């Protein structure tokens, strides 16, 4: 009986080790098999291509619903605190995300004629993710804001 117990225990141990290994392999393949998604890293890489320098937090506001029921059209309002005069204005606002199939969303170009550095767009979000906006000012300074938007139904098709 004792002998049987021991062999059962060792079998169970082997079984558990085997299961752990198998599930690890499964997780690994499922990660590898997924289509390349934008990651926080690729979002930062794209931003590094779009603007030169490190943005400081502030001056940029991202207005969006906290929970977007439909990821196909999520309204985003981007605004930057700026007087928008001929010498002091916002040149551009770049928007990227970290969970869509590609990180790029939009680059908005403003000028002194804009009067107000604000624009509204509608975007697709595949999943709950961060939206990052970086504003490029006429004096070369960079400002940024990040916002997490929860998405119930993703909007990037199947």
């Amino acid at each position, binding site marked *: 009986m004792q002998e049987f117990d021991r062999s059962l225990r060792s079998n169970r141990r082997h079984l558990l080790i085997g299961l752990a290994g198998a599930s690890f392999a499964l997780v690994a393949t499922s990660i590898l098999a997924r*289509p390349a998604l934008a990651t926080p890293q690729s979002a930062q890489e794209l931003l590094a291509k779009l603007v030169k320098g490190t943005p400081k937090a502030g001056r940029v506001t991202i207005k969006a619903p906290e929970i977007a029921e439909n990821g*196909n*059209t*999520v309204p985003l309002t981007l605004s930057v605190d700026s007087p*928008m005069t001929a010498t002091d204005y916002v040149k551009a606002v770049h928007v990227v*995300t970290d969970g*869509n*199939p*590609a990180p*790029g*969303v*939009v*680059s*908005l*170009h*403003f*000028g*002194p*004629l*804009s*009067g*107000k550095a*604000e*624009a*509204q*767009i*509608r*975007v*697709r*979000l595949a999943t709950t993710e961060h939206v990052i906006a970086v504003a490029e000012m006429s004096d070369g300074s960079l400002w940024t804001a990040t916002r997490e938007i929860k998405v119930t139904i993703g*909007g*990037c*098709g*199947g």
Partner: protein
Amino acid sequence: MASDVKPRIKAPETAKPGEVIEIKTLISHPMETGQRKDDKGQTIPRKIIKNFTCTYNGRPAFSADLEPAISANPFIAFYIKADQSGELQFTWTDDDGTVYKAEQKLTVG
């Protein structure tokens, strides 16, 4: 499909000098991402509007570079400072090079 593409503009026709006015634009366009597949498993080719530009009497006022992450029927709202009477010109450039145009008169005074 191209005939379905219809730009729409909503902007005031008159403004006071120096007034900042809101311009709303919408163009009916599928903004196909190139990520989706049809019933047969074939990838639907990408077709998006990649650029939108607004000029005010020929002067660049606002533009946007769009990516596939922009929803179908792209809606863009922005502002301009009305300083002279004239025309606002809007252009949307498609991936295939097609340019869609719209104009709107603006009287300042």
